């Protein structure tokens, strides 16, 4: 009996609404209390590394948000199970499945963030032509060439870096065109040519990216099906279930 009540509570719409509202409120508070310095730190390291080192006054809202988000993830799973069970035979298959596919997409995106928050990596470095970026296993990437296009007004309009890996692979890094190798992405942030030619590179590992993309695809598919099926409904009332 108690287990049943707990199960019903954890999968209830009301709990879901309160949890969404709670996370929303906490994120709003966090946007004001965190401060630009801590935000810069937060963006330079995996989330859990920041959470365990940041002052409590700056990060309490995120700890609470994560707790509520974990409960919301559980609520979503249970709600999906119950929703599919209860709607069986009552409405079209697509309309029944679409919201649950969206839920699945949402859960994958939450999982992606969790993976990135423990396994992410970022390093910034200044390089010149013929610099070598060394990897722990002895492999490396050499910067063969740095190029920049300069407008007549004197500002740089485009830039690139030609690279070669120790296994013979070649590539060109540009803005929005990183070089992926050995599980990391190498990003060219800036090139300066006067008085000395140098570039600023960032090395990123984002282990959750694939999961986030998968979640995004699922969410979008479910969302589009829901929108198109809803348009075909002649009467849409507040009692219609998503």
């Amino acid at each position, binding site marked *: 009996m108690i287990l049943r009540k707990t199960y019903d509570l954890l999968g209830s*719409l009301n709990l*879901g*609404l309160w949890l*969404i*509202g709670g*996370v*929303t409120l906490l*994120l*709003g508070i*966090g*946007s004001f209390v*965190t401060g*630009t310095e801590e*935000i810069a730190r*937060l*963006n330079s390291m995996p989330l859990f590394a920041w959470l365990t080192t940041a002052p409590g006054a700056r990060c309490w809202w995120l700890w609470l948000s994560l707790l509520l988000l974990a409960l919301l993830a559980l609520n979503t799973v249970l709600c999906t199970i119950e929703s599919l069970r209860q709607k069986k035979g009552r409405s079209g298959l697509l309309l029944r499945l679409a919201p649950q596919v969206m839920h699945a997409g949402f859960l994958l995106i939450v999982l*992606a*963030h969790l993976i*990135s928050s423990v396994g*992410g990596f*970022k390093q910034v470095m200044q390089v010149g032509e013929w610099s070598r970026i060394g990897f722990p296993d002895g492999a490396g990437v050499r910067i063969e060439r740095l190029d920049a296009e300069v*407008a007549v007004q004197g500002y740089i*309009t*485009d*830039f690139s870096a030609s690279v070669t890996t120790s296994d013979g692979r070649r590539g060109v890094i*540009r*803005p*929005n*065109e*990183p070089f992926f190798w050995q599980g990391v*992405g190498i*990003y060219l942030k800036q090139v300066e040519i006067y008085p000395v030619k140098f570039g600023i590179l*960032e090395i*990123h590992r*984002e282990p*959750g*990216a694939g999961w*986030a*993309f998968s979640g*995004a695809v699922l*969410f*979008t598919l479910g*969302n*589009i099906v*829901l*929108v198109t099926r*809803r*348009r075909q409904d002649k*009467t*849409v*009332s*507040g*009692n*219609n*279930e*998503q």
Partner: protein
Amino acid sequence: MFAAVGNVSLLYLSPWIWYEGYAMKWPLLIPIALYCFGSFTRPLFAAALLGQLAYLGWRGSELGRLPLIGPHDTLTFFSASIGVMALPLVYGRLLRDETAFRWSTGMMAGLFALLALPFPAMNMPLPPILRTYWFEGHVVLAFFAYALFGVGAILGALFLFGRGRILLDLQYRVILVGYTFFSLSMISGGIWGYYAWGTYWLWTPKELWTSILWLFYSLWLHLRLKGAEWDRAISWGALAGFAITLFTYLGVSMLMKSSHSF
């Protein structure tokens, strides 16, 4: 106002700058006037939108890109988006005789276009990091979503003023489509971020408020499952949602330090 807002400095109080600025922007005054004083008729509403689209088209052809940088261009684009999203409803069967809807959406579009006027039009070429379809798609989808959230708020307000429940059904569809656009905007932003900065997510005030906005409308869409007795709350919720939308778009850019402004 000018000294405090965003990166607009006291320089823009210079009469010459104002003259030059308005000389370039005068074509926008016509749609603003049509929106504010002519929206009671559908042809004038449509004419206002056409005028705006013509202005944006002209700016785009001058720049060689979509005009999506800075407060002037984004406010104008937002205003035009409201017109675009409202137009099917203005001419649709359900709201054909609803003058209040035409006025409200016209005034909303006119107001944001008017707000665009004091800001300088940014004519610089796009920096390399913004030269990608992911950026343009991200911004366009966001403004389409904002516009639909605005239209949804108006429908909610009309319901609160005693119009029929059919407006709530329409509101649901409008906001659901807006939610779809907004979700796609977040996804395209994440993809762009991954290729531009190495991560699909950054902890900045803009991203936080984007999440807040998305979560709010997720809550709003689920709130409808509570039943008809929640109709008034849902209507008020749409108004609150649009307030959050405006803070996400304008408030964060103007009042908070974020690399992700306008």
